[in-house]
């Protein structure tokens, strides 16, 4: 009888029982999916991006389906950090979920204030700083470089400041819309991030041929789902060649095979995003399938798998 593989991983000071996370914005605040499975089984729940004040987000329509994916322009609608602490956190704690609070702000101060507040309220086990939301600018005005994570200098500044504001493990979530992913990734590492999350959605757009209007009220949105997986795997591999800190892989992960693809390319954790919409228990299937895979291939621990692609 083979012993069961150890699926534990370490992301900064946080030890996770397994590497399977659910992505910010695709799992609400955990409660929405607790009716389908035991969310404490997840490596961690990553919350919807939290801002200091509640946000209404963008006008609808906010979603368009595209081949093997979807475009969204939610615009970071969220209840705000205070309502999160008062109304959402107790459920997550009660269910014994490991929680990574994803935070979003417009200024460095917003980020540091959010990190401090979350640490003070013991409102998460780690923080993921969303430096890469594509949907908070009106596409009619802002074009080109609009995200913190499109500038290595800005990443360094933001990550450093958040790092100083909290002792919680800190992960920097980056955009794929850059020239060379190694630069922002290294900037996050230099700024003191304990991990980088790769990738947020790819910028995209869709037009209604009959109505001759953009399909999203915000015009531009973020592309996610299996369609973008090859792009994400490539960026994870690129970043893994230069980083010392771990990578949280995200982008089109639908099943255990996809998860293994990210691990082999260099990710330490794997995140199920849009696939949860298709199969609410997709993350559990990934977890079970990953354990099977490791048993079948006689891997005792994930170290043997992470970055183990033969080139």
């Amino acid at each position, binding site marked *: 009888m083979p012993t069961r593989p150890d699926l534990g991983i370490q992301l900064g000071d946080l030890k996770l029982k397994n590497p399977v996370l659910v992505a910010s914005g695709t799992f609400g605040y955990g409660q929405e999916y607790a009716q389908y499975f035991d969310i404490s089984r997840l490596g961690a729940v990553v919350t919807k991006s939290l801002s200091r004040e509640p946000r209404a987000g963008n006008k609808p329509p906010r979603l368009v389906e595209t081949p093997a994916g*979807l475009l969204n322009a939610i615009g970071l609608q969220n209840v705000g950090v205070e309502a999160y602490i008062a109304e959402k956190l107790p459920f997550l704690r009660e269910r014994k979920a490991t929680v990574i609070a994803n935070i979003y702000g417009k200024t460095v101060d917003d980020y540091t204030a959010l990190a401090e507040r979350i640490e003070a309220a013991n409102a998460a086990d780690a923080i993921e700083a969303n430096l890469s939301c594509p949907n908070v600018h009106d596409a009619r005005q802002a074009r080109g470089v609009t995200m913190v994570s499109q500038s290595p200098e800005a990443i360094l500044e933001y990550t450093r400041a958040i790092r100083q504001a909290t002792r919680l493990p800190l992960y920097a979530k980056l955009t794929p819309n850059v020239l060379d992913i190694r630069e922002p990734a290294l900037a996050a590492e230099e700024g003191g991030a304990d991990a980088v999350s790769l990738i947020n959605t790819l910028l995209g757009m869709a037009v209604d041929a009959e109505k001759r209007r953009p399909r999203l009220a915000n015009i531009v949105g973020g592309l996610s789902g299996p369609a973008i997986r090859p792009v994400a795997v490539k960026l994870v591999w690129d970043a893994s060649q230069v980083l010392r800190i771990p990578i949280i892989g995200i982008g089109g992960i639908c099943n255990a095979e996809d998860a293994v693809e990210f691990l082999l390319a260099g990710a330490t954790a794997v995140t199920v995003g849009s696939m949860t919409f298709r199969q609410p228990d997709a993350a559990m299937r990934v977890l079970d399938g990953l354990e099977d895979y490791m048993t079948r291939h006689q891997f005792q621990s994930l170290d043997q798998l992470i970055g183990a692609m033969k080139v």
Partner: protein
Amino acid sequence: MERFLLDCPVTRHDEVALGQYRLFLRMPEIARIARPGQFCMLEVAQGYYPFLRRPMCFEQIFDEEISILYKVEGEGTRLLAQFLPGQAMNVQGPLGNGFPIDAGYGRHILAAGGIGVAALPALAKALTEACGKAPEVILAARSKHLLLCADLFESFGCAVHLATDDGSAGERAFAASVLQRLEPGRGTRVYACGPMIMMRTVSDVARAAGANCLVSLEAQMACGDGACLGCVVESKYEQEGEKMVRVCLDGPVFDTEIIDWEAHNLAYAP
């Protein structure tokens, strides 16, 4: 609220009009708790095209089965139409708030536009049982062959008023003008489901007459569970955190009063 994720066998599947189908699925767990106006998300594809599930209302709710009445619109519903009796489909549900059943209203009028009728038979049945009297029904569609469920409503005892855009059956009229003629008033509750423009005009007539009006909205959905915040419409609530209401979780049934009908999204609606 309890929700399930189940493989449900198709028990019957009929084309009831050109490109319009009625599908029966066996799902005892869901049928037991489902309420009129609720919906489910069907996994229509086996691969990733289309990637998302498709939301469909419960047309009728039986002991162990539910039926769905749908129209082929695009790729998803085309795949749906290919399911054969005996095959299983993965179903997520029951979802959404459903229609409140309040026998306190003296008069109930159901207004259906086109395939929007799919949300109303279960409601007609529930109202008949709760009120001891069948509701009135306005059945409007573009043309005669798209008028569905008239027999079903009549079987509950409903007075059914037919209207078509082209006059091929019933009156040549829109649902709102039929409602006007029926003279709703205070103490009347109107339930509308159909194209946005139809629900809006029906709402206007109902409100002008002092009637209460509920609408069952549609929106592009990803999760169906309130998690993705993709399916929102704008409400009249002022606070940042409350402005956007989710069709999937806060709805699909809303009191017309709380909807901001002037808002952008409603202009965008099909």
